[in-house]
């Protein structure tokens, strides 16, 4: 039992009010103990060892409470004359102890789970009220799940007459006046009043006070009761998630748990697998990452062990985020780590073992004869020489029939005639381990938490693994009555293996099945004589480098809290954050050696040590934050509650980078600089930024009914010139808890109803550190064989550079109905970002200088988001289902003007097509234009004819031709030739021929009617982009007895992904490059000399194969390659089992939970590419984990 303030430890129950004071402190925890931990009959399973020597009963009870989770209730009078107790118990049940210590007294007790009531021996439950005229009312009080509620006060309204419910939640109240009203109250539950008129039995179901009236949520520079909040804040009870899921990093775990929050995992490579978090869509054209605050200090999510996190708050609107001012435009994520809070010392172990595999892989053709035939087909298609000789192809065909046959030097056919599936070769299942041990506890004056974590993620691909070590120490000491000091120190160290995954990615399609990967420890070489010598073997590419890659982070906060008066306190925080990356690589000479296995010939030898180079890179960053906060908190007349905050913050960050390379290692084992001979290069740089801020906040509430909040922040940033560097960011919000109004109180179905509204302004200083200055940067040249330094302008400066500012208006509604079974939050917002910091493309005529950073566009995001939770039980199965949904509409509201496209006449009167696209819009295939969404897809369409060919008069029908843009039939070809003859131009290849436009090629629509089909003026805005319009997620939770089942779903819809990628879904081939498996059977082929060729496939969905890199006929950026990016993914499924505490106790633990969990188990999507979550390109696949985990508290 937690008892914060000794002064409040009133014993006895002279009045119900006093009981309530005690209850306030205890019942929440009891409640949690009873209904959340699902522990069965604590009293029957708990064994205590206690020793008493001449102690009062009060002391005895205190000791019991201190050493267990029992709470003991009694009247002081009952024990004031009690005798002193002496006795010793070893592993005794509570009943034994109580029997013993009470045997000399005229007392009895009742126990229900953790709750013990001491009563007179002659006590008859429910019948202790004085005799009064009136009737007797009995009943039972239970909660919404049907569990009985003991300890509920039942009072006749307006009197002090009342009882509390017994262990079974029953009460009995005699002599109740007929016109009376009974008041049922219980901390954590909503008070209910019932008129007794005409009733003898009144059963009551008490609703939880919304999500719990006492729920406290972290907000900027403080905490706030959830019910009193006026901003749009989502809070995530991270601790519960983290203890039940295999969680490699924090960011990806946030997917699907909150409305308005989109998390996209770009790839699954250990170390770079963090998710990209977007709060309420993309508000800006540049950095859209939210500000991350960890325990009040800016940080990064990667640096935190998920197991250390208690809760996460996501500040979504300006009202809640503007206290962070200039960097909060993309929202703020507040992470609160766990503290020591238990009087007992708790040791918790969390362990996860998971098997990880790729969620998806896009295969290449791996049957080499098929590959060779298709390469030849692609050469024939454009009228060039075939690549592979028929002898080579038939040799493979023969060998493939006898894969284990040996050749003359004893090499099996499957090696000498490879059919390599590079995906199968490179990707493997692995075992991820994650262990965390946490120790926490508290003494009278100090609270502490220590944790140590270890994560080992070997990666899906050899030599790409990551090990993470993490430590944390949170200590807080009450130095005296008015001073509290503390530290929060955490450190992580990441060790990443040097396997160059990006090489695997880059070269996976720059290889062919004709290279055997690795045999006998040696790397293979292309086996076919016609195969390109540049067809890569991915193993050497992956293992090119040896060395180490360590990232160490240390973050220390020292803080003090001074209580100046009862209402005023002052916090001083100092934070120092250090990151250091130590990177060294040196060439692995072994990868140079490659062998043609069929002949045993070494095609390239070990790299000579004199050519090996060694490279060191050190990157460091140091940040300090100094912060001073004054907090004021007072309630006037019991109804007017005011809290205020004033603060100062200064932040300075500097980073640096040193690189050096030397070449010529005398031996591959010696790779430090002293072991290398020739200096190749030394480079290095540094940069810094600073921020100084003043900020404040006032909250006022009247009777917890009318709520008001105002924030103001004044920021100065080093990233802008002294004329433009200061910005002011105010916000205001109001709330009305309508459910607190008298006229609403009688609506029994309604437990909470709150309306919220807010307005505020936020900033974004996401420019480069020195973008406002005109600078010359170093370059190198040489004269007479000697290197010299030069200076050249680097980036066009913009001295007028300023903050980008975002104004957000938000209205919201929180509601809880049906006794807490249904609760929800809804928010609508209008977010306008002005002066967006961008670097729009500049005139090519300006050369190679970087485009300046400008305050350019205005973007409006309008959206709606909603969370709904339904909690109930069916028999013994408790469940809750919550869903969140977000809709966001993104529009560029101001940019460079309206797009005008029209036909005009030139001086000669000839029609000229006019378009100002280049003036008013920037970008390429995705563009920014006023009135459209940010980076809207801007593409041409393939041609859609009506399937007719000629007009009645025999002339070519310009509406005719192929219906799906592809020249498929001789009739299509005739039509096309007719069109060309009639003067129409078909870009880019213009004429019909095998190496121009031929059967199986796309033609494009002429959308502007200039008779040129598929020129740049035929590109159009498509009304979609890669950002989803809709995001949704769902959490489901079921529990039955000791089992629990959780699911997290997340998804997005309303976006389109442009995907055309060489080697995957492109029909363009190239020697030494892969052909995607998806086009093997589904590409167009037509033998124009033999219309009956069985190989003809004129209804295919992919165009004909072409051995040509520079022919763009089928690779124009068109809507042909635009795919729906909608997906729904089961992010997590967890089945857990908590050991009955009796069994747990036997193995000396308090609690043991075992679970199976699966991450990214299922994905539903129509997107044919690797992963719609990644976007329209292929990268390191996201991993699917099947995990076994355990969670033990000792």
């Amino acid at each position, binding site marked *: 039992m937690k008892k914060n303030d000794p002064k409040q430890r009133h014993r006895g129950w002279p009045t119900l009010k006093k009981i309530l004071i005690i209850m306030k402190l205890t019942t929440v925890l009891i409640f949690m103990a009873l209904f959340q931990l699902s522990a069965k009959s604590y009293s029957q399973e708990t064994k205590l060892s206690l020793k008493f020597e001449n102690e009062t009963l009060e002391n005895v009870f205190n000791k019991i409470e201190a050493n267990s989770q029992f709470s003991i209730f009694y009247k002081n009078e009952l024990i004031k004359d009690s005798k002193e107790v002496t006795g010793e118990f070893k592993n005794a049940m509570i009943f034994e102890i109580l029997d013993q210590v009470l045997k000399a007294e005229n007392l009895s007790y009742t126990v229900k789970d953790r709750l013990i009531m001491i009563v007179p021996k002659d006590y008859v439950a429910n019948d202790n009220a004085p005799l009064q005229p009136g009737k007797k009312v009995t009943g039972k009080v239970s909660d919404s799940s049907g569990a009985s509620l003991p300890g509920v006060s039942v009072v006749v309204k307006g009197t002090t007459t009342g009882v509390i419910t017994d262990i079974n939640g029953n009460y009995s109240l005699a002599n109740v006046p007929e016109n009376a009203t009974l008041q049922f109250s219980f901390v954590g539950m909503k008070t209910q009043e019932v008129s007794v008129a005409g009733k003898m039995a009144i059963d009551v179901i008490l609703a939880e006070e919304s999500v719990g009236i006492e729920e406290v949520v972290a907000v900027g520079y403080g905490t706030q009761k959830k019910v009193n909040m006026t901003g749009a804040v989502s809070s995530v009870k991270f601790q519960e998630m983290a203890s039940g899921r295999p969680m490699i990093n924090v960011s990806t775990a946030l997917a699907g748990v909150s409305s308005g929050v989109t998390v996209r995992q770009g790839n699954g490579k250990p170390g770079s697998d963090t998710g990209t978090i977007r709060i309420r869509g993309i508000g800006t054209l540049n950095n859209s990452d939210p500000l991350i605050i960890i325990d009040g200090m800016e940080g990064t999510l990667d640096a935190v062990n998920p197991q250390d996190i208690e809760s996460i708050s996501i500040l979504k609107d300006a009202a809640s985020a503007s206290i962070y001012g200039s960097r909060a435009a993309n929202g703020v994520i507040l992470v609160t780590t766990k503290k020591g809070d238990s009087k007992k010392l708790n040791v918790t172990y969390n362990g996860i073992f998971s098997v990880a595999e790729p969620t998806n892989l896009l295969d290449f053709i791996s049957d080499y004869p098929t590959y060779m035939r298709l390469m030849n087909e692609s050469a024939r298609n454009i009228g060039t020489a075939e690549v592979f000789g028929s002898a080579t192809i038939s040799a493979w065909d023969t060998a493939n029939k006898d894969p284990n046959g040996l050749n003359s030097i004893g090499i099996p056919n499957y090696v000498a005639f490879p059919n390599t599936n590079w995906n199968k070769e490179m990707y493997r299942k692995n075992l991820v381990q994650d262990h965390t041990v946490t120790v926490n506890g508290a003494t009278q004056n100090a609270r502490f938490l220590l944790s140590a974590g270890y994560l080992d993620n070997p990666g899906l691909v050899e030599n790409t693994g990551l090990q993470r070590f993490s430590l944390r120490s949170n200590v807080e000491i009450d130095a005296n009555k008015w001073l509290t000091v503390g530290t929060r120190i955490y450190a992580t160290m990441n060790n990443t293996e040097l396997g160059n995954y990006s090489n695997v990615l880059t070269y996976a399609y720059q290889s062919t099945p004709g290279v055997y990967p690795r045999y006998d420890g040696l790397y293979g070489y292309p086996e076919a004589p016609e195969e390109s010598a540049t067809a890569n073997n991915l193993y050497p590419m992956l293992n090119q480098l040896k060395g180490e890659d360590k990232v160490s982070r240390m973050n220390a906060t020292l803080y003090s809290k001074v209580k100046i008066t009862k209402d005023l306190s002052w916090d001083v925080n100092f934070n120092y954050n250090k990151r250091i990356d130590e990177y060294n690589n040196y060439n692995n000479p072994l990868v140079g050696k490659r062998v043609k296995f069929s002949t045993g010939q070494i095609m390239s030898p070990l790299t000579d040590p004199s050519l090996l180079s060694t490279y060191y890179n050190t990157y460091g960053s140091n940040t300090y934050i100094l912060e001073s906060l004054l907090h004021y908190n007072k309630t006037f007349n019991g109804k007017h509650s005011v809290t205020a905050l004033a603060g100062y913050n200064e932040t300075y960050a500097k980073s640096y980078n040193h690189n050096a390379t030397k070449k010529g290692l005398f031996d591959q084992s010696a790779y430090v600089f002293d072991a290398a001979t020739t200096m190749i290069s030394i480079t290095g740089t540094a940069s810094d930024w600073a921020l100084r801020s003043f900020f404040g906040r006032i909250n006022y509430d009247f009777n917890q009914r009318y709520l008001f909040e105002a924030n103001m922040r004044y920021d100065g940033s080093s990233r802008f010139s002294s004329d433009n560097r200061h910005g002011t960011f105010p916000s205001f919000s109001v709330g009305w808890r309508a459910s607190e109004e008298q006229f609403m109180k009688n609506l029994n179905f309604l437990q909470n109803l709150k309306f919220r509204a807010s307005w505020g302004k936020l900033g974004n200083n996401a420019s480069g550190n020195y973008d406002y*200055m005109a600078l010359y940067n170093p370059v190198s040249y040489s004269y007479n064989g000697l290197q010299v330094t030069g200076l050249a302008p680097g980036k066009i400066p913009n001295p007028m550079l300023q903050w980008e500012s975002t104004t957000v208006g938000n209205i919201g509604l929180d509601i809880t109905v049906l006794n807490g079974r249904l609760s929800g939050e809804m928010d609508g917002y209008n977010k306008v970002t002005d002066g967006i910091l961008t670097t729009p493309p500049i005139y090519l005529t300006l050369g190679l200088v970087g485009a300046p950073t400008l305050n350019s566009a205005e973007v409006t995001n309008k959206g709606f988001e909603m969370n709904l939770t339904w909690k109930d039980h069916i028999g013994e199965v408790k469940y809750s289902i919550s869903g969140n949904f977000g809709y966001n509409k993104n529009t560029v509201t101001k940019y460079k003007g309206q797009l005008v496209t029209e036909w005009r006449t030139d001086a000669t009167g000839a029609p000229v097509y006019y378009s100002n696209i280049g003036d008013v819009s920037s970008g390429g295939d995705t563009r920014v234009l006023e009135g459209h969404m940010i980076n809207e897809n801007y593409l041409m369409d393939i041609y859609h004819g009506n399937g007719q060919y000629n007009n009645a008069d025999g002339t070519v029908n310009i509406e005719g031709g192929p219906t799906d843009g592809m020249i498929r039939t001789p009739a299509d070809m005739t039509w096309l030739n007719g069109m060309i003859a009639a003067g129409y131009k078909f870009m880019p290849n213009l004429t019909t021929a095998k190496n121009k436009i031929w059967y199986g090629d796309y033609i494009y629509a002429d959308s502007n009617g200039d008779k040129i089909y598929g020129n740049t003026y035929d590109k159009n805005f498509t009304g979609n982009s890669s950002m989803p319009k809709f995001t949704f997620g769902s959490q489901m939770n079921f529990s039955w007895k000791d089992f629990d089942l959780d699911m997290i779903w997340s998804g997005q819809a309303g976006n389109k992904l442009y995907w055309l990628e060489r080697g995957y879904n492109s029909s363009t081939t190239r020697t030494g490059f892969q052909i995607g498996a998806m086009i093997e059977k589904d590409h167009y082929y037509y033998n124009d000399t033999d219309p009956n060729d069985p190989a003809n496939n004129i209804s295919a969905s992919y165009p004909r194969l072409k051995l040509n890199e520079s022919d763009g006929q089928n690779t124009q950026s068109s809507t042909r390659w635009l795919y729906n990016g909608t997906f729904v993914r089961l992010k997590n499924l967890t089945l857990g089992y908590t050991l009955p505490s009796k069994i747990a106790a036997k193995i000396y633990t308090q609690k043991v939970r075992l679970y199976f969990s699966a991450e990214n188990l299922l994905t539903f999507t129509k997107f044919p590419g690797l992963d719609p979550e990644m976007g329209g390109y292929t990268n390191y696949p996201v991993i699917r984990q099947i995990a076994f985990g355990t969670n033990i508290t000792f």
Partner: protein
Amino acid sequence: MKKLKLIIIIFAVIFLTGCSESLLDTTPYNAIGSTSMWTTESLADLGVNGVYQTLRQDYVGLNRWYFDQESSTGMSRGATSLTNGNIITTDGLFVNYWKQNYEGIHRANAAILNLPNSTMAAEKKARLIAECKFLRAWFYFNLNQVFKGVPLYQVPVTLDEANKGRETEAKIWETIVTDLTDCINEVNLPNIYAKGNANYGRVTKAAAYALRGKAYMYTKDFVKAEADFRSVGTMGTSLYQGDYKLLFKLANEQHPEMIFSVQNIATPGLGSVTQFYCGSRISFGSCWNNYLPNPDLVDSYEKKDGSPFNWNDYLPGYNSMTPAQRSVYFLRDGLTAAEITTFTKYGADMTKYLPVGNEERVRKAYEDRDPRLTAMIITPYSSYLGANGTTPYTYTLRWPYRGFDTAAPFDIKTDTNTMFYYLWRKFVYEGTETPARDYGPIDQPLIRYADVVLMLAEAINEQGFKEEAVTFVNSVRTRSGVVALQTSNSALPTYVGNQTALRDRIRNERRWELCNEGVNLFDEMRWGTWKDKKFYSGNGIKQIWGTLTSPYSWRGDYIYNWAIPQTEVEMNKNLVQNPGWIN
């Protein structure tokens, strides 16, 4: 009281450590603000170095040689959008050519504007300004050569001012001439730098005359061109006279023949990359044979006596055979039965095959030729000193390829082992001459005296047939061991009798002498011979015997004037696209 004291102390600590006034005034650590730039001699020097550094951009200087893949003298391994006739206005070639040269222009403009205000000796200041004017002329020259009239900027511009329309081609030539005339008139600009001079690699008067003369060639002002080219000869320049192959080696990178070169040193990012793209798998560091000599160039090299080469003279009936049939002559001795089957299937006329002597027979066709052929190009059954790692080996170009990098038979391995192509020797390092494939030490010539001498001959000849022009051509021929041309004996193959004949001779001479140096394509475009020499019917990327790998296709005569980059036309309404191009 105690509490108050402590509070005061904490306050004091905070205000002493924080709140420094300069907190927000951060400045970069690796750059200099433009306001202080150009003020001191040292900064001005660095600024001028920055202008020179633009020469390291591909299309400005360093890699101009690879334009010859598009000319009749070179070819690429795979089709390019320019040669397969599918090039459009958004092509990266146009974009990068435009951007890179304009980068140099703006750097030079800033230097020319600001140098007068910097503190340094007047002589040096004048020299640096002249150097920057030359460089500016170089950049505009590159642009005007292909785009024919571009926007003209001669002072630094702001973001919004870079939207001028195009000047005429003539106007740009005029400004180039003006800048170069300023250089020539600058007394502080040296004629040339002697070998080993610390300033070697900077602009000289010789370079200015050469470039101005070339500008006059474009404006067809042959009198002025002739005068300028003659002046180059008075500046201390000379033709190299030793072993021709060594002209392109490190020892001669500062020979007086080299008038203006991109400076290379063996340092990452500051060296040459020709060998990377023109070498082969057995050139140093396993290079790529992306760029190849054109068989047309090889066939055009004359015999030693000055007569045209004809395959029939060495391989009777060759000219009337199909390309596939001809391939028999290039096969190695001692083919295996399997190889014979393969080549029979391929279509080679195996009746002509000699199991012994097949190599010797074809080798003869290359021996009795202009010595520049074998000095610049690896021909079948000739050897090349390559390297495997740091170990040099001598390799031979044979067909079909059998192996190996470190063991007999030491065949030259290429990225195109199933095709048989000539390979460049020119600018490809031998043995271990370079420490790495991507940063060779040898300077890349941009203007060579041989180029000037041949242009001088051209300038004279364009005014009328003159004996002197022949003499100038001969000076380039004879120093590499080629028989001299003459005007007296019409019975001899070396005879040239009129302007037209000499014009053809000069043009071929420029192809033979300047191949793979980034001159030929622009010559062909200047002469208007590009279409006929490169895109004649049936031509394409082809193997030695003429089998096409990929056909060429002429997009239209309008490609003589390259397209203004599409995005620039879209952004800048004042720019008018060259006729013929579809936006």
